[in-house]
């Protein structure tokens, strides 16, 4: 067998090693690795007939289901480029993300397909793009034709997005070798085996779910247990029935499960590693989780640019509860001052790291921006943090202004752009207001052009946001001010608005 690079190579060797073991559980559906490999071959053949080949992009707009996994792996098998996107996005948001990608096709759900097809028909970005329910792809393919041989060299494998500071999401390419390196780093650091079961409740279109559930499973042979949305009784039953041992999650879901008293009646003793990412973990959630499930809740730090970077596996989980841990194998971490000089232990600075899994640059940004962000193979995250004497990383906040809400990152500028379209709005600033558990809620501070009925205007603004934005970006709080506080240099004083 010739060596296949990337995730496709991981899949081939796992299938060889674990063929009859369970690869995937999705409701009542169970697939062995042999069956998953067959489904991936069928899907790859169907996609090849729809003109998806090496270097071509396919948008994958699907929830956490079998079709997501099969389609993503089929794209890897073909040496093509997957563009996973949030199925909760409005069509307008999908359009903004797809504008620079030149996708050949969009694989989605039967429910979403008509609206997306309508978008593709009427926009230049969608010109020549086919749209189909993923579940129909195999059936529509001409029979018997196999997929072409996978490419033997490294190439683009994933197109991911990081919220930019301009209101436009920044896209980036990660290669097959980078994704394989991410899976290797996690596998080597955490020690995942084919005896593990990973609960994939966190969104698979996002780096957290893609890396720490899908890639980790394909690399190790661990069973991937899919759940599309948090439903507590179902989640607890899945953990018990499937003997879930690894649970990548977000603070909100962890808090909700830990608050659920009837969880005491479920047998969750199989859980050996639960970890959150995407937002700071409140001490209260850590404590409640430990009491409820008897195993410490850990933190992981990662980003779209490189997947997972650090994870807390410290022997003293309690003393290090606030830390996202130490770098995964294969990754070097450095905290630097503004001039690039290294910080002393305990001193906050910008978190930077070098990882074989990291992208080498953003798509469509000026070269000097990439030169700054990726100089010398070190990615500057724009996150603030420090390491303690033992090398544990603590994230202190962001240099960027993203709002972290229920596991999502919201770009305030994107929300401001929408609110500004209302004729009665003279000025607006969107900020993350502190929630009771350290999470953030989206808050819009609005200056209106004339005296209006605030309640009526609030209603109209929320309606406008809901039309244009995914529901997690819609402000929870709309407050009115006579003016936006600014510094003498014109910089918005956000701290007075939260």
């Amino acid at each position, binding site marked *: 067998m010739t060596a296949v690079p990337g995730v496709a190579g991981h899949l081939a060797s796992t299938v060889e090693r674990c063929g009859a073991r369970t690869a995937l559980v999705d409701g009542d559906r169970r697939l062995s690795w042999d069956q998953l490999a067959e489904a991936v071959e069928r899907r790859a053949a169907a996609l090849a007939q729809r003109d998806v080949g090496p270097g071509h992009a396919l948008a994958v707009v699907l929830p956490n289901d079998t079709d997501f996994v099969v389609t993503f792996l089929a794209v890897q098998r073909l040496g093509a480029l997957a563009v996973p996107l949030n199925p909760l996005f409005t069509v307008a948001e999908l359009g903004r993300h797809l504008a620079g990608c030149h996708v050949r096709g969009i694989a989605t759900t039967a429910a979403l397909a008509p609206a997306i097809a309508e978008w593709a028909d009427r926009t230049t970005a969608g010109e020549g793009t086919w749209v189909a329910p993923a579940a129909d792809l195999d059936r529509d393919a001409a029979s018997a034709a196999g997929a072409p041989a996978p490419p033997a060299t490294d190439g683009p494998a994933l197109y991911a997005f990081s919220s930019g500071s301009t209101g436009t999401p920044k896209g980036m390419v990660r290669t097959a070798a980078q994704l394989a390196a991410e899976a290797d780093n996690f596998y080597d650091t955490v020690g995942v085996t084919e005896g593990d079961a990973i609960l994939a409740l966190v969104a698979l279109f996002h780096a957290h779910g893609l890396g720490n559930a899908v890639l980790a499973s394909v690399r190790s042979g661990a069973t991937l247990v899919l759940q599309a*949305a*948090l*439903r*507590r*009784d*179902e989640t607890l039953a899945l953990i018990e029935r499937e003997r879930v041992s690894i649970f990548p999650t977000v603070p*909100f879901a962890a808090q*909700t499960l830990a*608050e*659920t*008293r*009837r969880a005491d009646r479920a047998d969750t003793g199989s859980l050996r590693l639960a970890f959150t990412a995407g937002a700071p973990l409140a001490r209260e959630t850590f404590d409640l989780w430990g009491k409820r499930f008897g195993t410490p809740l850990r933190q992981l730090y990662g980003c779209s640019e490189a997947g997972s970077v650090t994870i807390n596996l410290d022997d003293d989980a309690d003393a290090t509860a606030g830390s996202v841990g130490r770098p995964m194998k294969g990754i070097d971490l450095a905290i630097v001052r503004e001039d690039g000089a290294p910080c002393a232990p305990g001193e906050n600075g910008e978190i930077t790291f070098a990882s074989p899994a990291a992208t080498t640059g953003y798509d469509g940004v000026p070269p000097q921006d990439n030169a700054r962000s990726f100089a010398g193979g070190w990615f500057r995250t724009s996150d603030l943090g420090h390491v303690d004497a033992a090398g544990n990383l603590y994230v202190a906040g962001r240099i960027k202004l993203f709002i972290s809400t*229920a596991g999502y990152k919201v770009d305030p500028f994107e929300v401001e752009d929408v609110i500004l379209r209302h004729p009665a709005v003279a000025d607006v600033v969107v900020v993350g*207001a502190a*929630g*009771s558990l350290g999470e953030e*809620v989206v808050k819009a501070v609005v200056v209106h052009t004339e005296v209006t009925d605030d*309640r009526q205007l*609030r*209603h109209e603004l*929320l*309606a406008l*946001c*809901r039309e244009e934005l995914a*529901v*997690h970006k*819609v*402000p*929870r*709080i*709309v407050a009115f001010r006579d003016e936006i506080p600014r510094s003498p240099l014109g910089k918005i004083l956000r701290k007075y608005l939260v």
Partner: protein
Amino acid sequence: MDESLAAIDAGVRALLAERLHVEPDDVPGDDDASLQDMGLDSTAILSLVTGLEDRYDVEIPDRDITLDNFGSVGAVNRYMAGLLP
């Protein structure tokens, strides 16, 4: 509105303020006003549910978390009144 329903109504409104940062002013007096229109998504509703479980020492099964039961303040009041002894 009888005594107990009024108490539940006050409790639900307090939880909306505490856990979901919906300012009391923003909770419409109208019982049938939609929680979705107040910007509450499914994760927010789930947070309200765990808050209700904690406050009233009850269990709310997943299957009960529907628009019928959690679509508006009035619906939540009626659902909770049915759940409480």
